[in-house]
């Protein structure tokens, strides 16, 4: 039985690593969730501050996800379907925010909206991004767009363009073919992309911190609330925010893996 014992050894060792890791992650999450005294989370949830943070987090993350969809879906379609000069480079550039530290993205956005003529112009028409919730939205948008884009790109790449051709011979215009055939067929990828973009948006901290600042009750999303409450020594409040964030991430990840776990992103 030499062979099979030895084979099992590989299995045992590698599976051990998996379980170790799983245990570590579960332990961390449980530690956070069980840390506050029972009831303290509920109490924290009742405070105006946490309620504001939840409200602002939802508002900004939903808006930024929406923006990511509006920009990401057409862009992903173009990247999946058309060849144009410099496409490889463009493909790389649109992925940059993925590798860029969020803080750096924040600095870039701050300079873009705070110091350029274009930023001044936006300000003059009432679109102020620096130190406002609008800034949080744009920060989330910028940092998380590559998720939406990559997932949709690989979803569209997975859809044979011949579905569109067939739809066109059956009386569709190219745009109708996209709306009636391609989009319904990419609904899973779309859903997975939207969920992960939303979850990452809710958790976005670095870029939002720099661009929108950490102002209590103004630009205080859940992660900023966690950070602010840590700085002010309000551990219970901080951990309450963390607990909510954990719940959101776990649920989102579940949905993501269910609908698009195999999507590239």
């Amino acid at each position, binding site marked *: 039985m030499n062979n099979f014992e030895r084979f099992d050894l590989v299995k045992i060792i590698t599976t051990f690593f998996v379980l170790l890791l799983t245990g570590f992650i579960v332990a961390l999450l449980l530690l956070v969730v069980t840390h506050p005294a029972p009831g303290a989370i509920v109490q924290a949830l009742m405070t105006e501050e946490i309620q504001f943070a939840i409200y602002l987090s939802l508002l900004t993350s939903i808006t930024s996800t929406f923006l990511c969809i509006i920009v990401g879906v057409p862009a992903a379609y173009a990247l999946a379907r058309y060849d144009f000069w410099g496409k490889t480079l463009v493909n790389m550039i649109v992925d940059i925010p993925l590798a860029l530290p969020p803080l750096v993205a924040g600095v870039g956005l701050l300079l873009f909206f*705070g110091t350029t003529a274009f930023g001044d112009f936006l300000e003059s028409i009432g679109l102020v991004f620096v130190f406002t919730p609008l800034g949080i939205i744009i920060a989330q948008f910028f940092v998380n767009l590559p998720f939406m884009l990559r997932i949709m790109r690989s979803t569209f790449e997975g859809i044979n363009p011949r579905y569109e051709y067939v739809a066109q011979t059956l009386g569709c215009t190219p745009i109708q073919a996209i709306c009636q055939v391609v989009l319904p067929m990419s609904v899973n990828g779309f859903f997975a992309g939207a969920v992960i973009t939303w979850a990452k948006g809710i958790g976005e901290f670095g870029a939002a911190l720099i661009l929108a*600042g*950490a102002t209590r009750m103004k630009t205080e999303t859940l992660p900023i609330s966690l950070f602010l409450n*840590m*700085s002010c020594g309000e*551990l219970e409040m*901080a951990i309450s925010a963390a607990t909510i964030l954990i719940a959101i991430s776990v649920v989102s990840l579940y949905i993501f893996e269910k609908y698009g776990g195999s999507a590239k992103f």
Partner: protein
Amino acid sequence: TSNAADTDVQTPAVTGASEKSLVVYCGAGLREPMEKIADAFKEKEGILIKYTYGGSAQLLSQIELLQEGDVYMPGARAYIESAAKKGFIDDSRDVVYHVLAIATKKGNPKDIRTLKDLTKEGVKVGIGEPEGNAVGKASKSVLTKNGLWEDIQDNIAVRSGTVNELLVYLNMDQVDAVIIWEDLLDTEKMDVVDIPVEEGFVKVVPVGKLTFSEQPDDAMKFVEFVASDDGKALYRECGFETYPSDKYENL
């Protein structure tokens, strides 16, 4: 739990036209009394106060970046002075004193009696970030004045963004002692080691009106209110020594 160095914080581009409000940059260490003052001020004048808490230097760089807001209240006069020099402050009042003290874990297990004891081997000390907040700057000055700055380096476990975080670290058992403002001490959770006045370092905490304020009158009203007897009374409730005081007269 926790740590978090340097609270960042930036500010409000004042909103809420329906309701009058002021944006106040405030040293994080002053949070407790300032919340009370905001309530009292709201009641009295009907003006909402929006605080941005953070380390004093950090607040100053935000003010510089943003060029907006109404009132600045850092943890020490030096910051107001440098702000005034840059032309951001046009009027200020002294309010209270910040007095440094050492806090140790309950029961003082490392037996810390003096500043010098902080340099004993194996003592983990938390201080404020010397370039970020008032408490850090003051701590550095005290330690330097007593010739301990070099010796303590190896014992410094963390330099925090705001004074409040030091309390969290102490409570979480991540450090043995911290140098913080006396007014923040909670004697139920920790032991206090006073730093003798002659070794110590007492800072006067001022409040100043920012030149960019678009409601200079309201801003000035708030500055006056903080420095008024009513304001100072609220500070005393929270364990502060108010300005002026005989105790620190000669400083």
